[in-house]
């Protein structure tokens, strides 16, 4: 029973570059969430996927952010033209279904120079 895994664990990039962050949810979990945690701050909701329904993108801060979930499993969060304010830990979580306990991955620490 592996937990939620995320890769890479750390990513350093230059301002203006695109980055892709990956999340592997727990097998069988239909709901998948992305959050952003800035240093010393709480968790900011970004987007969630529930089964085959259209994702809830209401938390994405700008159109530079996008995410997809292929085959109802792995998800990729893409940030285009990264800015320094995008530096944060990006956390992925999954749950058996919407509203159930969310299990978090260890996060990807993104640093934009």
């Amino acid at each position, binding site marked *: 029973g592996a937990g939620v895994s995320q890769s890479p664990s750390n990513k350093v990039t230059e301002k203006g570059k695109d980055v892709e962050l990956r999340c592997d949810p727990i097998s069988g979990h239909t709901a998948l969430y992305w959050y952003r945690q800035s240093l010393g701050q709480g968790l900011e909701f970004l987007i969630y996927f529930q089964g085959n329904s259209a994702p809830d993108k209401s938390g994405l801060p700008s159109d530079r952010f996008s995410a997809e979930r292929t085959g109802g499993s792995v998800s990729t969060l893409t940030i285009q033209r990264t800015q320094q304010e995008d530096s944060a830990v990006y956390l992925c979580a999954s749950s058996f279904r919407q509203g159930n*306990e969310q299990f978090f991955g260890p996060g990807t620490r993104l640093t934009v120079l």
Partner: protein
Amino acid sequence: QQQVKQSPQSLIVQKGGISIINCAYENTAFDYFPWYQQFPGKGPALLIAIRPDVSEKKEGRFTISFNKSAKQFSLHIMDSQPGDSATYFCAASFQKLVFGTGTRLLVSP
């Protein structure tokens, strides 16, 4: 309306003492109130959760008290231990989780 307000921001408690963290919400549609514990470099992990049909839930040294009319809930950690030192987040959910800003707890030996 979607906010969850958490206090205090930080807390220092002596070993063996009681740690109390408070949260308040506005949206009466919230129907699930979990508490998460996060250690440095790790993702948050569910500690304990409550639904609004009960006023208290206890699991070991951890208790959630829930006041539906006041729209407040709190986490009590009894007999606090140095290993409890972490950041604690309350959250409220209606379809998706809304997190409080976190409380950094330090339990001194």
